[in-house]
């Protein structure tokens, strides 16, 4: 598989949110607006690429029995680095996303890619895989955030173009479940047609 395909497969065919249904907690919790969704996606992308590379480089030296705890420590280290970077450069976003930044440690996407891809492929391939899956996640979160923001407050990326409040429930918890359900259905419909 070429490097380019490694990146593109994460976008549609193996999209972590719409197809693999992984990492649902941040997907639902942080997509109250398009900007928030995108920041969460990019934060995960950062950790995913670096942890994929580190795990791929160290995999031959880690005994098989303790590999999962070892991966978790590697991922947690990168999450801590990310926390420092975000506190320094984007304190507002860090505050909005709150608890869900440290919770990237237990995001199934990151550990899943380590176990399914990074530990048996080269460093460059693992980086490409991380970029692909991370971008797929970012795009999915941005779309979900955009839909919720449009319906919930009548704005997109913070630019308001409908007067009034919108359907408030889409910014709240029930709207997250509902919007995600319909987006998955839409995604299934669109990709099913492509196969025929």
């Amino acid at each position, binding site marked *: 598989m070429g490097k380019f395909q490694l990146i593109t497969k994460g976008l549609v065919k193996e999209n972590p949110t719409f197809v693999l249904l992984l990492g649902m907690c941040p997907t639902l919790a942080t997509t109250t607006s398009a900007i928030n969704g995108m920041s969460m996606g990019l934060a995960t992308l950062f950790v995913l690429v670096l942890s994929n590379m580190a795990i791929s480089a160290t995999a031959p030296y880690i005994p098989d029995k303790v590999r999962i705890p070892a991966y*978790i420590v590697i991922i947690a280290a990168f999450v801590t680095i990310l926390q420092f970077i975000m506190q320094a450069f984007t304190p507002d976003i860090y505050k909005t996303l709150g608890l869900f930044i440290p919770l990237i440690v237990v995001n199934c996407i990151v550990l899943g890619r380590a176990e399914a891809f990074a530990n048996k492929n080269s460093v460059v391939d693992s980086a490409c895989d991380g970029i692909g899956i991370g971008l797929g996640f970012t795009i999915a979160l941005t779309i979900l955030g955009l839909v919720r923001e449009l319906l919930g407050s009548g704005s997109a990326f913070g630019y308001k173009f409908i007067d009034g409040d919108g359907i408030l429930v889409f910014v709240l918890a029930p709207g997250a479940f509902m919007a995600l359900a319909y987006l998955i259905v839409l995604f299934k419909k669109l990709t099913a047609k492509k196969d025929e």
Partner: protein
Amino acid sequence: MEYILIIISAIFVNNILLSQFMGICPFLGVSNKLSTAVGMSGAVCFVITLATLVTYLFQYYVLVPLGIEFMQTIAFILIIAALVQMVEIVLKKVSPALYQALGIFLPLITTNCAVLGVALMVVTNEFSYGGEPHMLNLGESVVFAFATSLGFGLAMILFAGLREQIALNKVPKVFKGIPIALVTASILAMAFMGFSGLV
């Protein structure tokens, strides 16, 4: 009085699954059958309470005196992973019956974000129940953790019951599986919104 407010708030008003979105993976993954949902809830209840107790003590007796609070994430996830392993070993020896019931769910719990989420919440957030916002003390933290896990169990068991009924009905093809489960969860979350403003 404050303990009662903490309990009501954690179970109903700020339900960990339906309003905070932590632990959605097991919520969607093992809620096909009522019996597995009960098993998972029991195991989560046990681990959340224990993990919060240990991480709280670790935070205030190790990390804060040494001035290395930034190691929180790494330290907590290691404590939780070790704790889950230990609970598994102890349970196997002490109560094989309970181990049989909870056994298969225990390894899954390490990566349940509700456990790490609650542990981090009690040491980073301030809570206010009627009075001044303040950090929770040890007793309040443990009660908060236990009540949160009860809320997890309540939502999980309700949801599993609903999904068992849905499985018997005709569902459009594209909605089969996760999408219809998400629509159900949405309606359940709407019902729980009725509790908001209670505390």
